[in-house]
């Protein structure tokens, strides 16, 4: 789980941030200082809180005995759970940046070159541009159509060419399903049914699930950058005519962050 910059963002949205682990306050202090973490890190050395939440990892042994299943609860001001996030596969982790983009509408960061295509500009962005193996992030395509034109949304039916974002899964990552902004219903030509369309600016989103660090590393250059190509197909029409469908290639450029293996001084480590 990324532990840094997002916390101020969360606070601005009215939520406090607290992290709980089985470490001692001295270990937490060392970690907080190194990582410049200002929100409270709570020490639960006997795993009392972890057990009372019912999230103790019972398979963890020896020095790891007492750790929780890592995850997060979004809790409202009255102390009730609004949402919770845990990954079944311990090698994968949800990211708070993805949560902020998905649930709290935080705009994603530009993550590649804008493509100026015919009658549309397409910008790739992402909930995070620096990532680690196993993370789930959100990729978005921000599309800006030329004035007076519309493009057909998914569900427009067989008579129309709907927007389509294709990306190929490989060893380093896989994609989730595309989620699109709410289309507008438009009466088109002689069609008795209104058709779902986008006009002006609209956004498509989908989850990107990264494989283990070593697998993503294989794609990365010397600076840790790696590319995620995809194609975006669309057809634009005005109220009088339709233009030929277009397929453009869009590319996200992300940077793989190395795992920071730094530990606390030996005397602070859990035996």
């Amino acid at each position, binding site marked *: 789980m990324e532990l840094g910059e997002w916390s101020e963002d969360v606070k601005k949205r009215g939520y406090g941030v607290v992290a*709980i682990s089985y470490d001692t306050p001295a270990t937490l202090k060392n970690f907080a200082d190194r990582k410049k973490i200002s929100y409270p890190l709570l020490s639960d050395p006997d795993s009392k809180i972890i057990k009372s939440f019912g999230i103790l990892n019972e398979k963890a042994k020896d020095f790891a005995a007492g750790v929780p299943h890592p995850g997060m609860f979004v*809790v409202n001001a009255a102390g009730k759970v609004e949402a919770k996030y845990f990954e079944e596969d311990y090698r994968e982790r949800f990211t708070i940046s993805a949560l902020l983009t998905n649930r709290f509408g935080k705009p994603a960061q530009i993550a590649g070159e804008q493509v100026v295509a015919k009658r549309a500009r397409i910008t790739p962005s992402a909930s995070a541009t620096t990532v680690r193996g196993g993370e789930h992030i959100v990729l978005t395509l921000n599309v800006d159509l030329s004035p007076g034109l519309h493009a057909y949304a998914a569900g427009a039916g067989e008579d129309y060419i709907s927007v389509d974002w294709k990306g190929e899964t490989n060893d380093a990552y896989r994609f989730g399903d595309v989620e699109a902004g709410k289309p507008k219903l438009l009466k088109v030509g002689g069609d008795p049914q209104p058709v779902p369309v986008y006009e002006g600016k609209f956004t498509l989103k989908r989850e990107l699930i990264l494989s283990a660090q070593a697998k993503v590393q294989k794609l990365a250059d010397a600076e840790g950058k790696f590319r995620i190509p995809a194609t975006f197909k669309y057809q634009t029409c005005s109220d009088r005519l339709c233009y030929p469908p277009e397929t453009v290639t869009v590319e996200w450029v992300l940077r793989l962050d190395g795992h920071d293996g730094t530990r606390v001084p030996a005397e602070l480590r859990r035996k």
Partner: protein
Amino acid sequence: MMIRSALLPLMATALMGQNFADKLGPAVGTSIPSIEATDQNGKTQSFASVRGPKGAFVLFIRSADW
């Protein structure tokens, strides 16, 4: 696991992930247990002292050391 990640669409994996989360900890809509513990600065904190006007993100991490 391989079959799940390779073949099923996200909707299914999201649901499976959701089921996994469902089994862990207090259910959505229910109250969390009390949180009272010492923070990295030696200060005693509780849910009331860490929450903002809307609530709090309560994270459980494996360890701050390894």
